[in-house]
């Protein structure tokens, strides 16, 4: 197990530090793409996707830095895309909000809330019909549960018993609006329990080991239908941008301080050190920091797309 625990830590540390680097570099205005930061949700992306492994076919949202790095560990491609360079997985056309790399399992991410959910259903249907070993998993926030596409998709997945994993990354906020001022019903869990899928709710969305284990044990349910994981976390930064916004009156910094006590990276590091892996943790951290530095240097040095790239890729067969 130590390898797994260290691996989980390494991926989370990569995500956290890659975003810390974005926070430092963003004010220079070289990354011209709106950033929806993942800080706080690292344990969910890493726990779920490490548990599924190479079979994971991932569908996400505009807040997919964590998902992208957890699934691909492609930090070079990640920074190249954010800098708009031709070496990015989308050749710079996708940017932060549409990070994707189908060859490495991140299929597509969307900046219109809930809209990638039905695509995951279609892909799960493909997997079922083609009998391949892909596991389709779709990440979305609690804001998505306000959208029609969410309800349509939950219904269709359960009706057709599609092998898809829904992951609700529940940070209790849609932009700046809390669930309390968005919902005309009492309790989503009570409603979700009426559907014919495995519904699992976990409040400790910052404990990567726990999320990893929950996901591992839920994969078996896919043989008979969909799985829904509802996982709570706290969004550390503003909805879009690289800053804190605790002085904006819609939330209180004390909430953050409470959640930060169980910060995913902090608690995992603590566990590893207590288990006697201090040296290994240091090595991993050094390795990750070097990776990030290389990635940023490469991205900055890489060329922008040539003008003719503008017209490439609209239609197949051109």
């Amino acid at each position, binding site marked *: 197990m130590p390898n797994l625990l260290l691996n989980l830590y390494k991926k989370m540390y990569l995500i956290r530090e890659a975003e810390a680097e974005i926070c430092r570099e963003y004010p220079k205005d070289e990354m011209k793409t709106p950033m929806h930061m993942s800080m706080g949700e690292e344990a969910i992306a890493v726990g779920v996707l490490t548990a599924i492994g190479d079979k994971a076919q991932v569908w996400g949202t505009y807040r997919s830095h964590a998902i992208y790095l957890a699934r691909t560990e492609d930090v070079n491609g990640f920074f190249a895309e954010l800098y708009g360079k031709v070496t990015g997985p989308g050749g710079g056309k996708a940017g932060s909000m549409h990070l*994707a790399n*189908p060859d490495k399992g991140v299929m597509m991410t969307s900046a219109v809330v809930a*809209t990638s959910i*039905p695509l*995951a259903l279609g*892909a799960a249907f493909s997997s079922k019909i083609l009998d391949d070993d892909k596991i389709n998993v779709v990440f979305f926030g609690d804001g998505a549960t306000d959208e029609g596409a969410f309800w349509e998709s939950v219904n269709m997945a359960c009706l057709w018993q599609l092998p898809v994993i829904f992951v609700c990354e529940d940070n209790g906020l849609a932009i700046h609006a809390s669930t309390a001022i968005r919902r005309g019903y009492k309790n989503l869990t009570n409603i979700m329990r009426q559907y014919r899928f495995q519904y699992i709710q976990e409040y400790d969305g910052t404990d990567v080991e726990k999320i990893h284990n929950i996901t591992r044990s839920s994969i078996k349910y896919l043989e008979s239908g969909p799985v829904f994981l509802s996982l709570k976390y706290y969004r550390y930064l503003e909805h879009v941008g690289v800053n804190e916004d605790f002085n904006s009156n819609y939330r209180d910094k004390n909430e953050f301080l409470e959640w930060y006590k169980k910060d995913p990276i902090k608690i995992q590091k603590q566990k590893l050190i207590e288990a006697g892996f201090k040296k290994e943790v240091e090595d991993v951290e050094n390795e990750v920091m070097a990776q990030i530095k290389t990635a940023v240097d490469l991205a900055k040095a890489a060329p922008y797309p040539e003008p003719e790239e503008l017209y490439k890729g609209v239609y197949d*067969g051109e």
Partner: protein
Amino acid sequence: MMESRIISYEKAVNEAITQEMTRDDRVFVYGLDVADHKRIVGTTAGLVEKFGPNRCFSTPLSEDSSLGFGIGASATGLVPINIHIRVEFLLLTLNQLVNIGNSLRYGSNGKLSAPLVIIAMIGRGWGQGFQHSKSMQSIFAHIPGLKVIMPSTPYDMKGLMISAIRDNNIVVCLLHRWLYWTEGHVPELPYTIPIGQSRVLREGKDITVVATSWINVEAHDAANVLAKKGISMEIIDPRTISPLDDQTIINSVNKTGHCIIADYDWLNCGFSAEVAARVSNQCFNQLKKPASRIGFAWTPCPTTRPLENLFYPNAVTIIRETEKMLGLSKTDLSNEKFHTYENKFKGPF
């Protein structure tokens, strides 16, 4: 020459789908009511029986997510055909079409494609009112990444439908309700007609009428009436709205010097304006009169028959516009017989 026989447009749709499903077991059909007893006016007849419920199935009333489902399935190895009994229902899918489907390939740097076919019934029925009466080709053709076809004959229907199914992009097929009963020569074996080729439906030398979908039938009637006066009308059916083969249109207008665009849609910001702009740009010195346009009245579609008759353009509209453009006197039409559906179609669709 392939063995051909006379079949209906409806049968041509069914035959194209059936043959492609036989050829390629990745092809499947889904949508509201595709597997019920009416089988989308017969176009999906026999599919469940022949290919089973995994390859032809009805969906919940969830057009938006159903289309997203199709994009996801098409991006991962299948070839979905999503059928809508009315084009208006596609408005519920615009997010998936215009935010997701059209940019899937572009955003993945060419790694993903969406070989998805969307079939939607358009146009006039029988007192269909505001929401079961439109065409909206311009809305779909406005979007880069989508292709749009509107075949007007059974022959073109089958060949273009097979091309659409084999195309690795999203193709929106807009089929007029009344065309389903038209009949024509159609080869029995599968064949393709390239997407993006206009067709000269009738050759002439005095005036070019560019007509879309059902209005080709009306233009044909108009041409027969005017032929008695010695007017020779050339009819161009673009067949594909996007990508548009404008060269065939330009060649024709350069020959005739006159152009009427009869589009089965509203005029404002529409396909007719697109064609008029291209004709004006490419044929400026050959045009003897400015190009003119015919389309729906600039109103929602009324239900009551006398007003519905005024809403949709027809052969008479084309005849009057031609007379105006060529400076002819008004033809007496009192003895002419035009297309009527009064005895053919009693609804409800």
